[in-house]
């Protein structure tokens, strides 16, 4: 059943883009690993939003299916990332990502 009152596709895409760019900006400007993790979540969430909006636009369930996979991915990613953060903090006693440059060339 179509929803007449729904906002437009462009609006959804623009919102998702805006959120994604905000997350990307945060990712680039924060040095604290935890903040970076949050920003990653923002980006993931923006992508998920895009899926749902597109799915709603085309009227099939694929968008929400993809949303579920995105959420799954985010859950796994956060679990691993937080474990990494804990290890990082135990080893370096800081959460500064700039200290984590042992692989520099």
């Amino acid at each position, binding site marked *: 059943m179509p929803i007449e009152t729904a906002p437009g596709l462009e609006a959804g895409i623009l919102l998702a883009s805006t959120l994604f760019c905000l997350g990307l900006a945060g990712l680039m400007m924060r040095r604290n690993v935890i903040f*970076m993790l949050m920003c990653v979540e923002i980006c993931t969430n923006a992508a998920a939003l895009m899926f749902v909006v597109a799915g709603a636009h085309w009227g099939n369930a694929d968008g929400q299916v993809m949303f579920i996979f995105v959420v799954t991915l985010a859950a796994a990613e956060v679990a691993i990332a937080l474990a990494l953060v804990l290890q990082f903090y135990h080893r370096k006693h800081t959460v500064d990502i*700039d200290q984590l440059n042992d*692989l520099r060339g």
Partner: protein
Amino acid sequence: MQGLLAWVPLLPLIGFLILVGIPLFYRREPPESVITVIGVGSVGIAALFTAVATAAVFWQTPSGVVNIALWQWMQLGELKLGINFHVDWLTLVMLMIVTGVGFLIHLYSAGYMRKDPDFRRYFAYLNLFIFAMLTLVMADNLVLLYLGWEGVGLCSYLLIGFWYKDPVNGTAACKAFIVTRIGDTAMAIGLFLLFYEFSTLNIPELINAAGDPGADREIITIATLLLLGGAVGKSAQLPLQTWLPDAMAGPTPVSALIHAATMVTAGVYLIARMHPLYTLSETAMTAVAIVGALTLLLAGFSAIAQSDIKRVLAYSTISQIGYMFLALGVGAWSGAIFHLMTHAFFKALLFLSAGSVILSLHHEQNIFRMGGLYRKIPFTFLCFTIGCASLAALPLTSGFYSKDQILLRAWEFHQGFNSLWLAGVLGALITGIYTFRVLFLVFAGSEGAASRHCKDANTPAMTIPLAILAILALLGGLLTPPLQAVFGTTAERHPAAWVEGVAIAMPLIGLGVAWQLYRREKKTGEQRSRVTQFWFSGWGFDWLYDHLLVRPFNMLARLNHNDMIDALYKGTAAFSRQLNTLLSASQNGQVRWYLATFAAGSILFLALLVAL
């Protein structure tokens, strides 16, 4: 009975494996008697098996052929190769020479090499050599033959450099290995060519295929010439003869076995084995004959000028193999093989006698320091004289029959007087001269510097082989192998009597010349004329190759000391390193920096998308 033939090559292999594997089971070196039993016994049993098989299978049927398929070796597309043996009378002759003479020389070695610290290693190499040589002659396909071919080359290298602690010996071994490798490369290319043309390397099939009238004659010519290249290398013919005189660095029994009786005749065997192909190409035949004629003359002259007893014999070997090539070149296949056989007898005899002399004189090899030895080591003198007579082809000796046959065939082949025959006759004269020169210098005349310390070193292990070989050298001419089944019969034509007379006369003239020149040679030292110096150096081939190949190569190598071509790769490496430095700078380990570049890249990409 056929199973016995399969055991013939395997027995020396087993002997080799046992001798090599001994340290795996015993910490201490086993006594020499055990090694002798294993090393000599394996070859002796092989000789026995050969004799039994010959008597049982072939004596009544000269045209008999035995094929023994042991197992599949490899199969690559059309190429099907097996460890298969093909035995006919040609093979059998070779088998008898290799196992029989080989056994005698093994036995002699047990005496000659006594108390050598590397006794076990010596017999291991020798057994391996016998195995490889038997593989060579029994192979029914050219690749297996090539395996044996390279195997004997390896053993030759190992044995020339047997006393490796002297760098000279190592150099000689390397020289032999490298020079023969040139020939082997040609041979390998020849094999490729044959396979490319006929899609088989099985010898009987190959001969069938080449006999087809539609076969490409040019390809056959080129292939046979390439095979000749291999034969030239292995048999020390012009222009690859330079390695053989140096190969005398090895123990004397090794010289007798490998560098006189068996291995160096492998080239003759190869051409004889492939003779249906050669008959198809006149060019190849002519090339074989010319190589043989030139070699026999050049080597003969060189032999006259030598002062080292083993080098004389070495040059004489080259010269005699030249005869064989000449015989092959004029289509006297059985003559060539017959000469091969008699040569194996008398040359082994000569070398072993020379070894006996050397051992008696405490490793003195210079003939100008010998002389008058006939009183001190009479048995050796007797053996050496028989060998010399046979080598010079004095009438009624074995060498006479075989060489006479060659000269007659050479006369017939070109219907009369011709340069090849002339070369052969001249060679016979020269053979007479250098042979008796050595005999007189060593055994006759006044005593040389080394002769005074002479002490007969013969043991029963040495005298028995010498005696047997002496009998063979004298009477071997009666053992004409029945090779008609292999080579076919040719119509007997009797040339003019004077032709035969010349052949008989030449060695006698040579004997006379030698008597005149060298009977009373002063044993004080060597003053050589310019010509003899030239001959001494083997016609300057070593000098020529040194200046033509070795020095330019060395110079190039020196020039290239810093690797001109490597500079390219080094440059690449340096360039990569520069790039690495550049990229490393971007790889700064800062996640946020990566993110920023990632974002910038996305922006650029999207800008492209927007712009388009």
